């Protein structure tokens, strides 16, 4: 038995090595470099060389109103978008599971299709939808005398973004949850039915516990993704109106690629990372198997 265990350890490395090499070279190394940048003041396209400034960038962030505004906007987005996305995805996945086999793949394809769209295309499309004077949605509402300021009013802008996000991103979690649901042996449900358990009970006692690993995966990734929301906001509102939808990643992007302040952008990225890590640890704790 000893030889088998020893063998097993090397086997483990054999399996994991290719991935670990790629990971170290193209994720860890750049990551380390990128984070080190946060301790420097380095403005590209400036005749000044990079200067070590310690935590000055972080201090600037704490006093930067735009940073706090972007942070708040991001949190608002996550809170508005995550629950409906996961809830709806689960609902649709459950629906697909129960759908007749012949048509299931057809429906599934329909719900996943928006996810395939490139961000630039999806963004332009919805920006046209949301234009309050000449856009599609208001064109349909015009006969009723309703004109909604989808993306020109600060109260409507964020919900509009969330709506588009639902359409665009529900496909991913839905597919993962569907795969997870399909993994639960049908015999469990049949046995429970025989024992007289209602569908609600079946959901809480069978589905949810068995779905836990996949659900955790889906929720964690969705939150991580939501905290990094950028593409669709950039395309539809460009952070407006009045910077009310400018998320943290957009602020970082503009700092790095429009203002060329690489050191400060790196520090902001580091803060974003801390935020994400915080969220993830909380979630892992909450959903961990006892």
């Amino acid at each position, binding site marked *: 038995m000893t030889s088998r*265990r020893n063998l*097993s*350890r090397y*086997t*483990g*490395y054999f*399996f*994991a090595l*290719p991935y670990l090499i*790629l990971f170290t*070279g*193209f*994720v860890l*190394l*750049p990551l380390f*470099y*990128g*984070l080190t940048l946060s301790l420097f003041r380095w403005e590209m396209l400036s005749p000044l060389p990079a200067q070590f400034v310690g935590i000055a960038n972080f201090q600037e962030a704490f006093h930067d109103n735009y940073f706090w505004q972007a942070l708040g906007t991001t949190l608002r987005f996550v809170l508005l978008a995550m629950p409906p996305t996961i809830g709806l995805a689960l609902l*649709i996945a459950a*629906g697909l*599971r*129960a*759908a007749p*086999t012949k048509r299931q*793949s*057809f*429906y*599934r*394809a*329909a719900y996943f*299709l*928006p*996810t*395939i769209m*490139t961000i630039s*295309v999806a963004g*332009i*499309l*919805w920006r*046209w*939808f949301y234009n309050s004077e000449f856009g*599609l949605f208001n064109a349909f509402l015009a006969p009723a005398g309703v004109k909604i300021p989808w993306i020109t009013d600060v109260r409507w802008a964020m919900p509009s973004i969330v709506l588009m996000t639902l359409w665009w991103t529900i496909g991913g979690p839905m*597919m*993962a949850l569907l*795969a*997870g649901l399909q993994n639960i*042996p*049908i*015999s469990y449900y049949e046995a429970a039915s025989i024992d007289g358990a209602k569908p609600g009970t079946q959901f809480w006692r069978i589905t949810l516990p*068995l779905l836990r*690993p*996949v659900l955790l*995966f889906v929720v964690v*990734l969705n939150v991580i993704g939501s905290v*990094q929301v950028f593409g669709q906001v950039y395309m539809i509102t460009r952070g407006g109106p009045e910077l009310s939808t400018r998320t943290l990643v957009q602020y970082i992007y503009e700092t790095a690629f429009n203002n060329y302040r*690489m050191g400060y952008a790196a520090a902001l*990225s580091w803060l*974003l990372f801390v935020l994400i*890590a915080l969220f*993830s640890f909380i979630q892992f704790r909450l959903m961990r198997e006892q």
Partner: protein
Amino acid sequence: MRLRRNQPSNQGMGLAGETMLALGAALFVLPIVLIAITAFKPDAEIVHFKSVLPQTATTGNFKEILGNPEEIPIFRWFLNSVLVSSAVALLVVTVSSMAAYAFARLDLAGKRWIFPLIIGTLMVPGQVLLVPAYLILNRLGWLDTPLALIIPAGGGAFGFFLLHQFFLGIPKDLEEAAELDGCSRWRIFWNVVLPLSRPALASLAIFTFVGSWNDFLGPLVFLDSVDKYTLPVGVALFQTSYYAEYGLTMAAAALCTLPVVVAFLFFQRFITQSVALTGLKD
């Protein structure tokens, strides 16, 4: 051990349920259909939007995009995208499944701290890596080649995380049975675990393919030559940013999306639920 299809025999859905499902599906697909229809309208008509269907249908938008191979080598871009995205999907599924299996089932020194580290990188915003990755790729001489788009993708944590969670959910009995039968680790992996994981593997392949296909920032920054561009990037770049040419944009969008839609519709057969076996005693 009786194997049977893991599909509910009584369709507990009913007509009402399925109608809702179908309605939702139609709503989701509608904007995409709109793109395809709008691509056949002349620019002047799109701006007015008097009707959903084109009043004077035209292939002018498509002609303008497809008929200009010098400035818009669209077939070249298409091939590039197919090559890169397929390679990325293959690479990711291969290395991620092997590594995920190692972490889920095998002994590995340092597993307890390496795992959170890998998962932790999921939380890193992509922009942080962009500039350093560019410098590294420059050193390797991979810039302006497909390698710059393919190889780094293999290090992503998404596939690893997905498959790891999935492998955890597979009952150990099957693997233990094979081990007792004297199978090597590799054979257990290849002949037992992977077939059981087809839905997850297929899903990962599709996600990765689509993600790579739609990747904009990577090809933009790592490629220089026009004939090396991938499709979404090439198509996006030939437009100016001063005015929204809706007709061309929609036509370009239709062209970009069509291959992926077709591929998806074709490959999703492999994610059919009939593959999931119960493998338990009744």
